């Protein structure tokens, strides 16, 4: 089996986990892709996959995670299930083994998808042949109100960092906050941060403060490296928060900020600054606390 391609790797993951009869069924359905009536077969196979193969978690090993990363930088299999993997394998096979207009098929499948199908369709976006048409549909997916579908695109998916324009990227980060999602699983969060996003997030923090609502500490992660002027004042305000997590986020952001004023503020928090320096306080430690809080 060829595990040097993402398609081959998906196939291997399933072969290692599925009983022979289930794996054989999947193989037999894959053989129908080039038949005359293949569109009907594709829809039926896509619908039958969870019924035939189940919906168990994929539960990958460390070695498998490393293989995924080596094949596509940023590709994480956390949260993948058997049926999702099989559906994405089906889509990859359609893309690579048929003459079908993949982006058009992807669009029509998204339009009639149930929730599990939507999540699978968007989870695999980094593995499909890229095109403007595909990109448009992914933008459409981002407009969902369903958090789990939004996260299929935004979380642990290398596609946005690699392909999104700055406008769409910034919108995605802000929307994550609006739908009560988290930022740390967004691949490329630090690399793609930018001054415009920092400004938008500070404006958003002000809206939250006006409404007496909490501000997630993760927000400051995208602000720190770009903070100047009044944005540094915002970091100071967050550092003075009574909420320990909010304060931790602000301190970390101040540490990442090159504005001299930031360094002056940090002198008021010598212990916290030391915790940052020795690695006890980091965005990872904040992420852990957020995830535990659920």
């Amino acid at each position, binding site marked *: 089996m060829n595990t040097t391609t993402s398609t081959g790797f998906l196939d291997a993951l399933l072969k290692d986990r599925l009983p022979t009869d289930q794996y054989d069924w999947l193989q037999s359905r894959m053989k129908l892709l080039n038949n005359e009536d293949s569109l*009907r077969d594709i829809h039926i196979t896509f619908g039958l996959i969870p019924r035939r193969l189940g919906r168990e978690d994929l539960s990958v090993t460390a070695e498998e995670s490393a293989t995924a990363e080596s094949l596509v930088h940023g590709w994480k299999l956390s949260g993948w299930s058997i049926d999702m993997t099989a559906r994405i394998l089906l889509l990859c096979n359609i893309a690579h083994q048929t003459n079908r207009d993949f982006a058009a098929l992807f669009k029509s499948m998204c339009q009639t998808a149930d929730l599990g199908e939507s999540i699978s369709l968007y989870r695999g976006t980094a593995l499909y042949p890229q095109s403007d048409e595909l990109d448009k549909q992914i933008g459409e997916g981002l407009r969902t109100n369903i958090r789990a579908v939004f*996260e299929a695109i935004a979380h642990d998916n290398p596609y946005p960092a690699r392909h999104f324009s700055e406008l769409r990227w910034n919108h995605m980060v802000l929307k994550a906050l609006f739908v009560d999602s988290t930022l740390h699983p967004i691949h490329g969060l630090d690399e793609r941060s930018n001054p415009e996003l920092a400004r938008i997030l500070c404006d958003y923090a002000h809206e939250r403060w006006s409404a007496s609502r909490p501000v997630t500490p993760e927000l400051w992660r995208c602000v720190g490296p770009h903070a100047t002027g009044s944005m540094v004042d915002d970091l100071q305000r967050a550092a003075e928060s009574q909420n320990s997590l909010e304060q931790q986020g602000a301190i970390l952001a101040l540490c990442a900020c090159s504005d001299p004023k930031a360094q002056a503020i940090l002198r008021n928090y010598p212990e916290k600054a030391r915790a940052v320096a020795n690695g006890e306080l980091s965005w990872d430690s904040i992420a852990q606390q957020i995830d535990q809080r659920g």
Partner: protein
Amino acid sequence: MMFIDPHAHMISRVTDDYEAMAKAGVVAVIEPAFWLGQPRTHVATYMDYLSSIIGFERFRAGQFGIRHYCTIGLNSKEANNEELAEAVMEILPQFALKEGVVAIGEIGYDEQTDLEDKYFRAQLELAKELDLPVMIHTPHRDKKRGTSRSMDVCIEHGMDPSKIVVDHNNEETVREVLDRGFWAAFSIYPSTKMGNSRMVDILAEYGAERIMVDSACDWGISEPLGVAKTAALALERGIPEENVRLVCYQNALDAYGQSGQMKEDDWLNPPPVDQRGLYEGNSVLRGGREPVIDDNADKHTLNKLIIE
């Protein structure tokens, strides 16, 4: 007590209804594809409707800790628009295998026209091909004859009555439906269908075998607590608790569970994949009576002015 409402058009209901149903013990609802009040004129709007009840409505229910299932079909009213009906028949197979589709339905007769008959039969064949149960809508007018005829056609097509739920029964139709081996559902719907006091009389007379209660709540004046209120009234009037459990929970699960798409584990022990944001869990099941701060009691009066 846990309840299933096996007939509820939640797409027409507001979030208050979901809250009230969850609080009353409803753990699952089945949303039959039906007419929206305003006739559809294009197959594309029909597709978007089916996508809604498969997708967003299922998600919306999950936020209130209620599991949402649906049935897929061409309803009898719109079967009379032949151009639309033909197009809908073509797209139905694409929807009938989606997650949570527990039957082909609600299908059957409205005015008992030739077109209604044609598409009713075609959908029975589809149900047979896909091995799905069927939910039958019996007509408001000429009900008794329409109900008998619906069952005759099912038998003619070689359908197994144990996979067919005949809905909207009343005192006049129930005997024949049960005698012929079909499931008999009753819609507790004010004014036009059954009242729950009459329903309790039926339970006293016929027992609980193959009988189920639903609300059929929709965009009309209807009662989303129809199942829970009927259960309470039945218990109050001395119907055995086990019979109440059967008609307000278990029978619906047994009938529609034949699709393979609806299991008790869905709400008692949801799979991890669903806990990632698709289903919030039911507060009734999460240790029962969490202290409910009764903020909501005044929600629709001007006594509580603060909106946060």
